[in-house]
């Protein structure tokens, strides 16, 4: 039976402390290095949900929700929720100046029916009526000088030809990838089509704009 700490002699106690510290030295950098951070920016500043931001020349915009799937070679399907900082870190061993990221998920992942972890329908990304996963969910309000436009986009799809699954090499800065939303937000047809809730050509085109937002 292991001795309790106060029962150890000095030598044994020092040995254990040394082992512990040595373990920390080995593990801590590994834990840090095994991560990839994802930051969402708007005009070079971190974006906050529920905050009104300047948009175009005279308008303003507010995001109420931003969730999407993204992956690395070490974590193929990761659920990101801007509201939950615990989801802002992905697993990635041995990063360099750039790395391969996966956007969305393939048809197998969409249809395999795992329903756990990032596939849990509780996360609000499962299309129950049309099996598959929403790959990006974004909603908010656009204010122009005349009126406000609530918007909501659920983009996804895995059926040919409108497949929202891509991979792309992206640049890293200090183990961090920056997602700049200006281009994607500008591409959203908020005044003309404020809601897109199903797969198809419009969802597919907008999803490409989203992927383009990564450097």
């Amino acid at each position: 039976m292991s001795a309790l700490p106060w029962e150890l002699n000095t030598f044994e106690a020092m040995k254990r402390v040394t082992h512990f510290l040595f373990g920390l030295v080995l593990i801590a950098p590994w834990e840090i290095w095994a991560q990839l951070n994802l930051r969402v920016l708007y005009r070079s500043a971190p974006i906050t949900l529920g905050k009104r931001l300047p948009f175009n020349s005279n308008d303003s915009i507010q995001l109420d929700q931003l969730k999407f799937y993204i992956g690395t070679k070490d974590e193929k399907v990761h659920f990101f929720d801007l509201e939950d900082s615990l989801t802002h870190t992905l697993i990635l061993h041995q990063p360099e100046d750039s790395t391969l990221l996966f956007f969305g998920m393939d048809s197998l992942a969409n249809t395999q029916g795992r329903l756990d972890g990032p596939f849990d329908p509780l996360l609000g990304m499962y299309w129950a009526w049309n099996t598959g996963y929403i790959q990006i969910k974004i909603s908010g309000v656009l204010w122009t000088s005349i009126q406000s436009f609530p918007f909501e986009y659920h983009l996804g799809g895995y059926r040919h030809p409108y497949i929202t699954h891509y991979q792309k090499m992206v640049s890293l800065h200090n183990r961090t990838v920056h997602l700049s939303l200006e281009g994607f937000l500008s591409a959203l047809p908020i005044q003309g089509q404020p809601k897109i809730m199903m797969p198809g050509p419009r969802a597919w085109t907008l999803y490409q704009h989203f992927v383009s937002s990564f450097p």
Partner: protein
Amino acid sequence: MKYLIPLWLLLSVFLVSWEVSPEDGLFYQPDGWPKPSYNFETNPISHEGFLLGKALFYDPLLSKDSTVSCASCHLQYTAFAHVDHPTSHGVDSRVGKRNAPGLMNLAWYPYFHWDGGVLGLNGQAINPITHPDEMGSTLEDVLKKLNRNPIYRKAFKNVFKTDEIKTYHLLKALAQFTVSLVSANSKYDQMKRKELAFSDQEQRGYTLFLRHCNQCHTEPLFTNFKFKSNGIGPHPTLKDEGRSEITGKGKDAYAFRVPTLRNIEHSFPYMHDGRFSKLKEVIHHYATASMWKLPVSPELNKKNISLNADEEKALLSFLKTLTDKGFLLNSNFGYFTLP
């Protein structure tokens, strides 16, 4: 030693027959049927899991105000269909736009719902649980209720070795029950197994069935699982374009999944919107091409079914041989609560 081998053989036969017995309620594979679509590796069926799923199926706790259970629209004696109304009603007496289909032989279904939008049985139950016209609840709310309930907590722990009930535990438990609903012992099945013979009228009806219906309602499941437009045309008030709402393709407009004909006698009303209440109306629809409204799938156009009154009766007589009383009355599928 010389008794060991016969004893071992006897034991093996006993175990095999015990495993596949339809009477115990668990899933079994009828002889001569195709391989199921359901991947049992994702959700191995156990007796405890089956009982848990059955308790959930009959428990109105799954609905937002604990008034509606799965069984409210899927009654065993009507082949787990809903016979009171053309389309089913849920919480707050809200009425949906589709006829609740019978539940049987789901292990062979590649997709679910009249439009085929749902690809797996494991995830199917999210739809009725969360649909505002059905159970109107949320997964969060259902999981909260279940996790607060000591009987369910104990049952889930027993089946899934978990202290916290999560979405996939709930859904897989329900699937363990619904995938076990196998109906394969109708008079038709007994005739096929040469345990009895059809009457002359039933045999004539069977011959007509093979000539006119089997292409879509294909034996032994009595569906080819394809999407067809059968000429009944759009419903006058319900806006439902069927398959095209899933695929986004105009060619799929008003096409719906070909339903199984097993237990058809008991699973009225008929069609995706329940517009026919009697089976003879359905037969008459198909037998009278002049009644068809566009669009009509090519199988029907080519066949140009034309039946006289005697033939319609014979076909009806055959369809009634698809009734499986043993399934409809199997006490293992009936109302159940956890002790």
